[in-house]
């Protein structure tokens, strides 16, 4: 009997195979017109004229400027950039935590053993829409708005990062909470614990690793982002980069880029260190 079962199961083709081929084909059909529409022409990169221009610009990068006066300025602006990114991330976390906990369907009391009640389901959709609004406006636009409101300087950068990243963190945190093992949260909700209690005792500890690592990665993004915000007057290294680029000071540009690389490497280390602490 068992030999017949084995033979019949293998004789039938892999039931997932046809769907996989179709998905691959669909991806190709969708991607090709998109590449054409985006005027994606990588060969222009290797055009002789653009190679010459690029080469001249890169030649200026060596050596990076390293006199004492510039290094002091660089240190000060670096510190300001880190401060903008960190303060912005802290505020973003404060915005994101309640939104993420409110969005997570795993933490729905009314959904235990049945269908989610209509009120909470609508509330979740409303919170989701709210995070879409927060993150669909790029932080550059938020920065332009806040520069008008609070004037030139780091405050505008902090607020812009806080709002745009608050929406992103909320969405991704909710997805991380949603993808962890459901059993701990279900057990506590099914024992009559509250939504927030369940979040604290089951959902957050179950995904602490992933939450920490994604948040540190976002901090790294916030540092890069604060650079772009500097271009519109939100202070920090970005403003220096803007000035240097406008003056065609290749040595200064490369020095600032080296600092960026150091900061990104640092955030990599911090992330690994936090993950090891949680492991």
């Amino acid at each position, binding site marked *: 009997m068992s030999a017949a079962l084995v033979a019949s199961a293998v004789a039938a083709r892999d039931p997932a195979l046809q769907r996989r081929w179709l998905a691959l084909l669909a991806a190709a059909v969708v991607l090709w017109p998109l590449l054409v529409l985006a005027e994606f022409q990588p060969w222009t990169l290797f055009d002789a004229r653009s190679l010459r221009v690029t080469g001249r610009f890169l030649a200026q990068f060596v050596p990076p400027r390293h006199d004492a006066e510039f290094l002091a300025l660089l240190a000060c602006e670096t510190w300001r950039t880190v401060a903008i990114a960190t303060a912005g991330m802290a505020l973003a976390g404060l915005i994101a935590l309640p939104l993420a906990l409110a969005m997570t369907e795993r933490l729905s009391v009314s959904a235990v*053993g049945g269908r989610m009640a209509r009120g909470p389901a609508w509330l979740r959709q409303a919170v989701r829409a709210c995070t879409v609004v927060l993150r669909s406006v790029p932080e550059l636009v938020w920065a332009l708005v806040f520069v008008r409101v609070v004037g030139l300087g780091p405050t505008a950068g902090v607020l812009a990062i806080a709002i745009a990243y608050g929406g992103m963190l909320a969405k991704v945190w909710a997805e991380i909470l949603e993808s962890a093992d459901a059993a701990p949260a279900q057990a506590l909700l099914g*024992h*009559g614990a509250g939504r927030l*209690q369940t979040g604290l*005792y089951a959902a957050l500890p179950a995904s*602490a690793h992933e939450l920490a690592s994604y948040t540190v990665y976002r901090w790294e993004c916030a540092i890069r982002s604060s650079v772009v915000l500097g271009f519109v007057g939100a202070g920090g290294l970005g403003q220096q980069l803007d000035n240097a680029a406008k003056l065609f000071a290749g040595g200064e540009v490369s020095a600032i880029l080296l600092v960026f690389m150091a900061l990104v490497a640092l955030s990599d280390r911090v992330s690994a260190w936090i993950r090891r602490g949680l492991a």
Partner: protein
Amino acid sequence: MSLSAPVVVELGGLQVAPMPGAAPVLKGLDLRLTAGEQVAVIGASGAGKTTLLLALAGMLRPSAGRLALFGQEPWTLGTAARQRQRARALLAPQVPPLPPRQRVVTAVLAARLPQMSLWASLRTLWTPRVADAERVQRALVALDLPDKLWLRVDRLSGGERQRVGLARLLVADVDLWLVDEPLSALDPARAELVMRQLTETARAEGRTLVCSLHQVEVARRCFARTVALREGRVVYDGPSSGLDDARLQALYGGALFASPATPVAESLPAAAPLPQAMCR
């Protein structure tokens, strides 16, 4: 059991699906439990033991039939009232639902969250009160885990984790214990200890105990009453001593082993090698 004891569980023609929209696993189940009773639930895999326990915990909504817990039908209550009712029962699933990176003391105290305010639960997360830590340590000692209080759950073996999951029962302030396969990861000596602790503590503290088991021997020795399920229905409900071999054959000798070539005796699940003194 005295006849005047309050009714804890009353099921009539209960039909429950394991997920909303799925085909029912419990197909018309009748059951009545009074306060302080101890009942073993046996049956082959897929007979509906876990689904029954989830329904008794108020975690699955019946598709038909009557389900009353503590004299109230949970699915006619509002969400808040149903949460208060759920707080009176605790289900210990077969796979303990403990976050791996949580400390044992915190994971066990989570069973007392319904009694804690949000502030108290935050404070306990930071560091537990001495009285609470002592309460957890007493439960751990009772289950032979005397040195695990401050360890993280992922540092424990499978059997230790299962006992930590059961320690939640011992610290919880509930009227109804629902235990799903508590012995599945335990060695014979620990299995004996756990069954003795659960039955004796439930008796001493007046808690109602419903325990699903694969080991028919344990049901016979430790429980006065056994409910046997087959394909979502109760096929035996009575004194455990009345479970003779003929009934067990009918219970486990299902369609899969129905071919005459298979001797029925081999199709019986092997009873776990438990000491004779078990639960005496």
